[in-house]
């Protein structure tokens, strides 16, 4: 293999490299293009520190759920109940913290457990009874929407204890002396993160080179690293000039990193993809397909619960309407991000980019004053378009 790499002329290598990677970076490019478009159209409002912070806060729960949904979709299933589950868990949280004055940490843990239990209940029917997930979770959607109403008795319930609100509306504490509007701690974290990312990818590249593995051309690697580091730095700079890093962004980033690692590098991640790619072949290779499917639903339930908590904390109240239609945004995010409806294909990074595309469009169109009616039309067309492009690329 190394021989072949060496023998290829440099130019052709670059050409084929761009072609192979266009698909991976295609969605990211689209996101950048959409951001640029709205940045220009809104006269710079989109990337104002305040708006950017809001953008993160508004979309955090979608991103969190998209991580779980990606795994569900990769195994070849779907979960329509996530919006209702998030709403229901928000209601349970309010009941515990507001009505029964349960300590917020305990309530938080109970709520996550409730979400996981709901996921387990649905996953059980899907994995072991082979009932199509579409039907099981459609039932779940109705059940938990109804239960949320029942728990709240049709009323809104709030406000939450102030510490719990910090989950969504808080920012990381400032440890260093402030310099004007800039929050140095956040900036420092951003800088460390940027350096860390570049260091990690350089290390992995060196390791691959030392084993004689074909790697991306050096120019690309350098360019990619610089762009990545600059993007991270610029983004944190913008955020840091408002109120610093939101707590929920920290949680979200940690989850994205965790799920990215699990899907790409661990045995369980690989097995989940195998189940989605060909469940029978996976089963005959010794993979416990039912257990994995069950697990993805438990995971989805827990993440839906977390999203429900974040959303409730953000509104500072639990309402019977919370979570309404979230499932559509979450599923759309995964498919825009390149997941296959047939299972086996999809990346965490793609789902996150997909969620951000939806978020930026929501935000940008709202700033432009486009009505909710046409916003929906445009989002629908973008979803269809993104999937069409993906299918077209695969055929080529």
């Amino acid at each position, binding site marked *: *293999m190394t021989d*072949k790499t060496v023998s290829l002329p440099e130019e052709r290598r670059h050409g084929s490299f761009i072609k192979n990677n266009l698909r991976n970076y295609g969605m990211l490019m689209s996101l950048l293009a959409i951001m640029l478009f709205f940045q220009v159209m809104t006269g710079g409002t989109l990337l104002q520190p305040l708006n950017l912070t809001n953008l993160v806060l508004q979309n955090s729960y979608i991103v969190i759920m998209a991580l779980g949904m990606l795994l569900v979709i990769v195994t070849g299933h779907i979960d329509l109940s996530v919006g209702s589950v998030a709403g229901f868990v928000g209601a349970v949280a309010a009941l515990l913290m507001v009505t029964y004055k349960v300590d917020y940490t305990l309530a938080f843990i109970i709520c996550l457990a409730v979400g996981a239990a709901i996921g387990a209940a649905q996953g059980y029917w899907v994995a072991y009874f082979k009932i199509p997930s579409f039907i099981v979770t459609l039932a779940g959607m109705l059940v938990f929407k109804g239960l949320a109403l029942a728990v709240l008795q049709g009323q809104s319930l709030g406000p939450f204890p102030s510490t719990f609100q910090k989950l969504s509306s808080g920012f990381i504490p400032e440890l260093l002396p402030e310099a004007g509007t800039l929050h140095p701690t956040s900036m420092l974290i951003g800088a460390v993160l940027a350096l860390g990312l570049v260091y990690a990818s350089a290390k992995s590249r060196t*390791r*691959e080179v030392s*084993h004689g*593995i*074909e790697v991306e051309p050096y120019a690309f690697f350098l360019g990619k690293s610089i762009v990545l580091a600059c993007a991270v730095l610029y983004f944190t700079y913008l955020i840091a000039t408002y109120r610093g890093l939101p707590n929920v962004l920290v949680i979200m980033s940690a989850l994205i990193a965790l799920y990215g690692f699990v899907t790409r*590098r*661990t*045995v*369980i991640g*690989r*097995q989940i*993809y*195998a189940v989605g*790619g*060909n469940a*029978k*072949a*996976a*089963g*005959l*290779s*010794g*993979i*416990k397909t039912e257990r994995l499917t069950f697990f993805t639903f438990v995971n989805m339930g827990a993440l839906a619960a977390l999203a429900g908590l974040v959303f409730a904390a953000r509104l500072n109240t639990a309402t019977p309407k919370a979570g309404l239609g979230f499932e559509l945004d979450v599923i759309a995010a995964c498919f825009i991000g390149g997941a296959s409806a047939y299972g*086996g*294909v999809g990346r965490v990074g793609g789902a996150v980019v997909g969620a951000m595309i939806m978020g930026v469009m929501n935000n940008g169109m709202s700033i432009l004053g486009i009505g909710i009616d046409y916003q929906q039309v445009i989002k629908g067309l973008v979803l269809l378009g993104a999937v069409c492009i993906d299918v077209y690329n695969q055929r080529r």
Partner: protein
Amino acid sequence: MTAMLEMRNVSKSFSGVQALRDVNFSVEAGQIHALVGENGAGKSTLMKVLSGVYPAGSYEGTIVFEGEERRFRDINDSEALGIIIIHQELALIPLMSIAENIFLSHPPSKFGVIDRDEVYKRTRELLAQVGLKESPDTLITDLGVGKQQLVEIAKALSKRVRMLILDEPTASLNEADSAALLERLMKFREQGIGSILISHKLNEVAKVADHITVLRDGRTVDGIDCRAEPIQEDRIIRSMVNRDLAHRFPERSAKIGEPVLEVSNWSVYHPIHPDRQVIKNVKFGVKRGEVVGIAGLMGAGRTEFAMSLFGRSWGTNISGRIALEGHEIALTSVAAAIDAGLAYVTEDRKQLGLILADDVRKNITLASLKQVAPGRVIDDIAELKVASDYRNRMRIRCSDVYQETSQLSGGNQQKVVLSKWLMTDPKVLILDEPTRGIDVGAKYEIYCIINELAEAGRGVVVISSEMPELLGICDRICVMNDGAFVGEFPGAEATQEKIMRAIMRNERSNGNGAVEAAEMGGSQP
């Protein structure tokens, strides 16, 4: 006789890769014309040009059919002239009846309402014509593959057929069904229908073909008029692979050791009909270094037996004893079977063996990820090395180990599956139809791999419907029929006749209706 079809100087290339170069190919009315060649030789491409899948203009050269030059825009154009292609993968709708499938695209109707009486009448006629004794109401899913093939042919006959193209029609059929199908072809010959038969099975080709064309690397390299000269299989093989195959099977000197797998009193019931005993208290064993063949007709229970051993992946109410290297073990899951040292290579590599959308590397390591994942985290470099290692050892032809397995040829896909199981370091390998749909060159390589496995002291079980293959590679052949072993022969003494006789004796004593079918297969030399 003038040619019914003539393809002149046909060339076709795909983004720079020349798939066909100046191919000349002609078929006469009432001729069975066999088209042979290794996978990738251009057979399917040529047929796609002929049937209009690749429209006129996308290739060079001319097609003359029944005296006129034709330029087909799509498959409907060629069908309208009576050129019907039957693909290797059957295109029937499983949950519809035979009659509904046959008249799917053009049901006889009055004012848009389907005339059911007419449908049934014509279906019965067509079924009689292809020799299939089934009710038109029977659902496709309730038929075996052999019968489904006949339904496909009946479907073709429901249209005006002048030329029938069969792509590997017997690849998934047992000897008896294959023989029946070939008889049918010979009947069509009498009716003046031209047939093009694409097949890897040279004994069948030799039996029915009037003319053989050999394709290699997109060129016609040999044409044999079977009525004028005797057929020499060696010559065909030589033209196909351009190399002298003195023997179709590699030499082997068996060093047989201690028993490694012993199964006794093994009994399995059908998962959907739990009162039907599919495997009937059988006893079976393999020794270290031994290659044991399991022969039998389709539906004899061979695959079911193998899968029930492999972590109970088929059947219910399984009972009996399994001992590996003398220790009795309970294999309650596939994972347990793999850990114990059992490997099973499925007969259907696309549906059950591979994850086609995944690359070579991921497929190879799938069953033994633990080896490259200390602490459950995959070491991608170790994985890459293992995969590349197998790629070299098994000579898997792929651009690199990141190539999707769906893009590989059948033989290379099978090598990927074999690599996957070798990586689990099994004590016993069960190979179910290991060379189905694979070209001659790759078959030989698979046989060599089987030999190497046995030499390394593993026990190898080969289930195959191709008897010459079993006779060529096995040290011992067990004959299964109706869920029980009905005969056993040392490899040197076994012949096709002996095997068929064992099956037939058993069928008669069971009073089973399949005797007729069995005899048809047995009458073959």
